[in-house]
């Protein structure tokens, strides 16, 4: 009985719909293309998108509070370039990564302070940081990609595997697991939800709202920075122009996953499923030799339809309509 109830509750969950779509897409592409349903293809696909997955998971927590970050692209580019430069200087990669992460987190610190202390809207503050960060990324590498002088082990992080399992996917899984725990079982997730749902109530309950938001901006910056390191390592280059639409992909995945821009709603799992849907559509259409341009168009259409559906209809409502269709309500049948 309880299991049945839980199952019902899960089916009413928006994530269930997304999961169904994800499974359907997998089946569809597997039938359409021979090369799709291969372990190697999945490894490839997930290695490529590990950076997106973990940044989106962290940004979900931030968006739950009703804030968002447009500067993730710039942070990613900056961090990738910085990491490569530090590597060419002969600094051990682990130290290079730590320094890069610290520098990347400054993005979050500045964003967070502008939003909480100076009351600038997150859109403008992070847009400003997007320009500044992008400029700094170009500046420190002189506008040129860092390709030469990199140590031989520079790409190891992203190309290695442990017992045949690619390391970047493991990093993404671990990071997502930590963020999932943080969102569901710690005070961070609870406070983020409380702030986004009813800021006044959260403040009255004694939560330091500004500090939570600041912390989450820094968290997102840290993941974006890590994403930069991973991307640089994957392509073996510190490229200041890499992943131009990264922040849009992040925001799209989060919103498709059911998090609202105004906060108070959303799950890490939803974001991850949504991100996987986007990734699989991209990869699958590639496998079918469909032009990359069609993929952009389809992405736009999916975005509009999914959000319309998400905001206008809930799955529960659909079930209700279906029931009504099957047995329409009879007029005037007093129960009491």
């Amino acid at each position, binding site marked *: 009985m309880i299991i049945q109830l839980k199952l019902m509750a899960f089916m009413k969950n928006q994530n269930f719909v997304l999961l169904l779509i994800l499974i359907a897409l997998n089946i569809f592409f597997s039938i359409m293309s021979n090369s799709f349903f291969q372990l190697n293809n999945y490894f490839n696909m997930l290695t490529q998108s590990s950076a997106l997955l973990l940044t989106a998971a962290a940004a979900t927590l931030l968006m739950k509070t009703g804030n968002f970050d447009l500067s993730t692209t710039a942070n990613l580019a900056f961090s990738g370039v910085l990491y490569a430069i530090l590597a060419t200087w002969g600094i051990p990669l682990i130290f290079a990564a730590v320094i890069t992460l610290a520098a990347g987190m400054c993005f979050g610190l500045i964003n967070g302070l502008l939003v909480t202390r100076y009351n600038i809207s997150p859109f403008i503050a992070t847009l400003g940081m997007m320009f500044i960060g992008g400029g700094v990324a170009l500046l420190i590498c002189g506008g040129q990609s860092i390709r030469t002088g990199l140590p031989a082990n520079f790409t190891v992080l992203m190309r290695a595997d442990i017992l045949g399992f690619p390391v970047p996917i493991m990093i993404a899984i671990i990071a997502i697991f930590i963020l999932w725990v*943080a969102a569901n*079982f*710690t*005070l*961070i997730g*609870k406070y983020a*939800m*409380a702030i*986004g*749902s*009813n800021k*006044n*109530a*959260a403040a*009255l*309950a*004694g*939560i330091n709202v500004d500090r939570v938001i600041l912390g989450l901006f820094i968290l997102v910056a840290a993941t974006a920075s890590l994403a930069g390191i991973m991307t640089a390592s994957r392509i073996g280059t510190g490229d200041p122009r890499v992943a131009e639409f990264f922040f849009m992909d992040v925001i799209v995945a989060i919103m498709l996953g059911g998090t609202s821009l105004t906060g*108070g*709603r959303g799950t890490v799992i939803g974001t991850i499923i949504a991100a996987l849907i986007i990734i699989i559509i991209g990869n699958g259409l590639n496998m079918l030799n469909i032009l990359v341009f069609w993929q952009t168009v389809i992405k736009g259409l999916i975005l509009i339809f999914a959000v319309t559906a998400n905001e206008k209809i809930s799955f529960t409502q659909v079930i209700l309509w279906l029931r009504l269709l099957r047995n329409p309500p009879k007029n005037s049948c007093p129960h009491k």
Partner: protein
Amino acid sequence: MQRSDNVIEIENIGKNFPGVQALKGVSFNVKRGTVHCIVGENGAGKSTFIKILTGAQPASIGKIKLNGKFFAPHHVSDAINQGISCLYQELNIVDELTIEENISLGQEKHRFLFPLKSKNLSKAKDIIADFDDTISLSDQVKSLSVAQKQIVEITRALVADCSVLVMDEPTAALSIGETTKIMRVIKRLRETGMTIIYISHKLSEIFEIGDYVTILRDGEMVETKELKTMQQSDLVRLMLGKIVAENYIPSKGDHNKTVLEVKNISTRKLKNINFNLKNGEILGFYGLLGAGKTEVAEILYGHKYTGQIYKNGKLISFNTARGALQHGFVLVPEERREEGIFGLLSIQRNIPMMNMDSVTRHGLVSNKAEGELADKYIKMFQIAASSRKHKVALLSGGNQQKVVIAKCLNRDADVFLMDEPTRGVDIGAKQEIHNIIRDLANNGKSIIVFSSELQEIIGLCDRIILMYDGMVREILENSNNIDTDHIMDIVAGKEK
């Protein structure tokens, strides 16, 4: 009992805002384990008083003693820590969390940010089961009814060891069944020795659960009395004070044509409303807060209803403000800031907004015409502003209201709905606004005034409709010797 019998002693509390004295000379005691009600019409100072007591605002003058000790909270948390919790009108509860999470929100003990199980959990469980055994701690708050959410908030206060609970209009958004539930909860709390300060405008509730009542009027305390010794109509009289009406001047028209006829209108809050309106007539709706006046205004301005509305003998229906305007209605809304003014825009830009054609010349908006129109109304209403370019948000409440009325007058409609037209307006301006309304009627326009001020109603209106609990109770012809005692009995719910 070793401690004093009075939980709270209020001594000569006052509050000044720039230019206004919101509260002055309020002194009374609250006895332990009683339900102490505070009543008063809008602007009487109830909300200012709550803010002072709960630490949201400091008092300008006076002292409060809590359990015999001086108590001067600087912050809401000060009051909570000393045992005073408040349920505000808007619920301060997070819909997206469970009841358990809400109860511990902000107070959690944690290890590495993982919340530890609270010792208070079983206490909360007992408390909540005591009030309502259909809800459990793991329920999501958004699935609860408003009354249940209030129970959650009460539980949170009890878990935090509160000894005084302030409730600000807890039943305003509740249905009858839910209200009964909350009444039961309050009685239950009193049995356990809790002190409750209860603010409400629903007199029946006050008489049902209250032990003592403090009446505020215009920022001053009128009296503190034991409720057992009082009748509802006594209380209303004390709330409203002596009625000093302007002389009623009947409007000049012949009132020979029915402009508007409303038949059998019902909504969630209204029951079977019938009335009509003649040309050149000023019709008044009077009743206490929550009697349903605003709802009547709203259905005439596009809200949903069942029933019929006839305009000039023709059945009409509309469900938007635009539709209402097209049928010749215009509304001066009660919520001036939210629904009336365009705060960031100048007076000149505000006034023509309902009728841009009045300032268009050859299809273009003429700055000159707009300026002349603004100057006309600024002069006519004596709007106190440095110039017509003044931003409306920076004007005083009374002047903002004049701008809203000017905007509506410029629409040139034939039925004017005026919801609390002079709320927050000083006496001089009030008189002017009344004269404008009379002039309008004498020019053949029909006017409905919705007001919770009896002086205004009997000074202004040709006929008066008395409302109570969503119903029309009586329709009176006005005259200079109208029986105000009778009116107060009716709106207080006394049967005829």
